[in-house]
């Protein structure tokens, strides 16, 4: 039934690295939440149970030949888009944002699968699309529509981080397919009025504040600039060797409200210093390069674009999250793959990894 070669071609190194990262993540969550008052299951154990769920999902995703996704990708896209519209109509609101669909037994956040589904959809679209010397403007009408509709829906929730991610990931796939220089320049020029209009009519005040505070953290040191200052202090005070596991003063005194989720890296950098951060960054970079290698070794266009897109998704998460924590990017709610606490993030990242493994182990299929 299942081809023996699939098993021998399984990328154990890649898989092992991911497990290592999740392990580091759980250890880090333990420290980040050590000062929390928690009843019920502690965060690190909850994360462990999410890991178990993620592994099951990985097995399922890996056992389906990814070529089947090619046939199904538009259906997936339609279904997730439909769910996003449902969210807008009947979604569950929590803390000012409407992102969830209440299924009775659980809540789902359709913007998460959209990150992966948009990659599949674009890969499917471009896999049958003859490209001579880069995509022209006319070639990009449909793919741009496919991308902007969900992105706008997600931004409206509002969830700026996820919307930006969907755009970045899609942009990366298209860039990989190849875009004419003329189009790139025109696009960048067109961005100016879009940014202007977006700033004045679309972004919510708190989103504007985040961006303004990023440009000048001292603007509101206790409001939304607070995160940035505190996480910079946490990372910087870690120094070269770090303060030691469970000994980060910034962490244990809880200066950052989101330190087990979006700011997990600040906890890690404070306690493990530059040495730890460097090792972590290298593992992440290795993961990304390995993902691109999988794409390079893949023989069909769909698989290659799929692998590139999923790798781009992981890469952008990593770069934006760490960049945010160390003050390179504004604070947007983007989790760090494998390190941040949270079922949705872990499941999305592990599904991404499963797709990469899937492409990788079927590279000799024909």
């Amino acid at each position: 039934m299942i081809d023996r070669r699939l098993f021998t071609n399984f990328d154990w190194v890649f898989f092992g690295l991911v497990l290592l990262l999740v392990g580091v993540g759980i250890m880090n969550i333990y420290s980040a939440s050590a000062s929390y008052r928690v009843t019920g299951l502690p965060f690190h154990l909850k994360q462990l149970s999410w890991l178990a769920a993620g592994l099951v999902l990985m097995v399922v995703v890996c056992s389906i030949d990814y070529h089947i996704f090619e046939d199904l990708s538009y259906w997936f896209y339609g279904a997730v888009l439909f769910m996003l519209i449902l969210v807008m109509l009947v979604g569950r609101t929590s803390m000012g944002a409407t992102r969830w669909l209440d299924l009775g037994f659980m809540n789902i956040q359709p913007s998460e699968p959209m990150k992966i589904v948009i990659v599949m959809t674009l890969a499917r679209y471009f896999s049958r699309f003859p490209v001579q010397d880069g995509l022209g403007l006319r070639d990009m009408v449909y793919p741009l529509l496919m991308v902007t509709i969900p992105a706008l829906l997600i931004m409206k929730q509002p969830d700026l981080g996820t919307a930006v991610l969907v755009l970045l990931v899609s942009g990366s796939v298209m860039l990989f397919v190849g875009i004419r220089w003329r189009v790139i320049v025109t696009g960048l020029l067109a961005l100016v009025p879009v940014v202007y209009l977006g700033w004045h009519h679309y972004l919510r005040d708190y989103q504007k504040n985040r961006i303004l505070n990023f440009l000048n953290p001292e603007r509101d040191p206790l409001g939304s600039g607070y995160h940035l200052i505190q996480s910079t202090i946490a990372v910087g005070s870690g120094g070269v060797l770090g303060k030691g596991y469970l000994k980060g003063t910034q962490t244990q005194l809880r200066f950052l409200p989101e330190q087990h989720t979006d700011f997990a890296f600040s906890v890690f950098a404070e306690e493990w210093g530059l040495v730890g951060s460097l090792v972590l960054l290298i593992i992440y970079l290795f993961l990304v390069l390995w993902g691109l290698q999988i794409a390079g070794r893949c023989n069909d266009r769909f698989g290659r674009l799929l692998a590139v897109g999923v790798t781009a998704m992981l890469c952008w998460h990593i770069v934006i999250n760490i960049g945010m924590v160390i003050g390179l990017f504004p604070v947007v709610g983007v989790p760090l793959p494998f390190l941040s606490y949270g079922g949705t993030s872990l499941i999305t990242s592990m599904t991404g990894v499963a797709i990469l493994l899937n492409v990788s182990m079927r590279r000799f299929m024909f």
Partner: protein
Amino acid sequence: MIQQRYVRDNKDQGRRILYASLIAGGFFFLLLTRLWYLQVVDSERLVELSEINRLRFVPVAASRGAILDRNGKILVGNTPSFSVAVVPQEVKDKDALLASLAGYLGQNLAELGQRWEKGKGRAKYYPIVIASGISRDQLEFLQENQLRLPGIDIEMKPIRQYPNGTLAAHLLGYLGEISEQELDQEQFSEYNSGDYVGKSGLERSWERFLHGVDGGRQIEVDARGRYLRTLNETRPTVGNSMVLTIDIDLQKAAEKAFGDRAGAAVVMDVNTGEVLAFASNPGFDPALFTGRLDPEIWKSYLEDKRHPLENKALKGQYPPGSTFKIITALAGLEHGLIDDKTTVVCRGFYEVGRDKFNCWEKKGHGVVDLKRALRESCDVYFYQLGERLGVDRIAEMSRKFGLGEVAGIGLDNEKPGLIPTTAWKEKKYGKKWYRGETLPVSIGQGYTLLTPIQLASMTAAVATDGVMYRPHLVKRIVDPDGKVLKEFTPEQVKRLDIKPASYRLIKEGLLAVVNEPRGTGAAARLYEVKVAGKTGTSQVVKLRDGKREVAYQYRDHALFVAFAPFDKPEVAVSVVIEHGEHGGAAAAPVAGAILRAYFEKKGVIRKPVTRDPEGEYEESPELEQEEGRQQ
């Protein structure tokens, strides 16, 4: 085929992968330089900053919304409660501190020690609550001596206050610390352990409207963790307040009418569905639950045979007894099996096959027509009618009145009661329905169970000739700024398709129950207002003879349903007295007292200028106003 589908294109892909890798590498390099800058170049300054970082976040609890009666009188409010906490990192000599605290507060040292141990696992600056609910005197004393007790912290938080004591305790419900199971639920995702949530009644069912949003203060402290100044403050948001349909005076009258007997009463405005009183007796003191509940009191509540913690008006399901004859009679009239001239001879019993079914009047009622059957509650008349109808046609009429299903009054765990049918028995017991089983059902015995809400709602529907409103308890929800968030206007659920003539016959019978000689409900009679009603006495267990003194829990339940005024109905009442033995003797006077209070408040009945049993002499101010206007 496959070749065509999965397009191969190898040329130039290697280069693209290389470019992508370089771009990714570039970003990582950017991250790395920034990390280098923070953790090496700028590290010294940031280490220093982290050491003088003396910001703390102190949560400030929000008040819950108040619950008011229909006229804005407070049923539940808030009052500040003070507790003493200890901040571990500032304590030098823990044992001495706890010992002196135990002395000041008059509390057990071992208990304080236990609470210290329990809270110790957290961050060292995090205050551990050692004693809550301390008195004003203790508070002042501690504040004066705070310098001699380094490390203590006095916290204020709002707690529930019940100005009317036990009044409407079941309806309002009590609060308790959030449980672990609750913390795992989605609806409590923004709660922390130690938070208080509604555990029963309205407090529980309307939690999301009542509870506010906690605020917090960003404070700066000195090197020893002492408060220096507040840097930033998010004010807590008070919860929304709720205006009920309940009338506090009527609620009081209803609870008072029960005395120390157990039971429930529901009073409903027949033209809106608004519930004016929702009583369950005996009550409990919800204030006892806000702190730590005294185990002795808890035990006494649990051991009381009258079950004071149970909301009987909401969750009590009782065999309706003869009050159910209204339904049986309506079914008979609608199916044309009886009219006002149909008579039956009651010899005190009725036989079906070998089974003998007794009428409560052993001597028999003689020749009985519908009006007399209702007035004197003749069982034989309804046995015969029920036998001709069959259980399913009785159930069909019951369903019309919403019996056997939840009314949706606005509280969790409302019970549906039970209306038996042949199909129900088949499904539940896998057995056929026996003809003989229909007879008890037709007089509200057997499997049939109704709730006080259903009894009131059924009576109201008869009063309005079939215009049914959804019984509801909440009139509106008002946010802290006084803006109305939700308004619950009367909702007409349905209009029953029953002939007006049928209602007329039933209502005449009910009027006779209260107002004619030999009527079983004479005790509910008011001279100023025409009351119509029906008694019910329902068996808890079958007893061979009624002579012996029966143990409390085996005595019959007493029921009474009524509406008034007869000509232009306004209000419907249901009363159940658990183990009260006779509907006419036990429940009817309670219903009468409630209706009297209703019409007294309206000024229809002059409040009697007689001696109160307690010796007090009182006249209501409303009445004086009413008279003033008349002059």
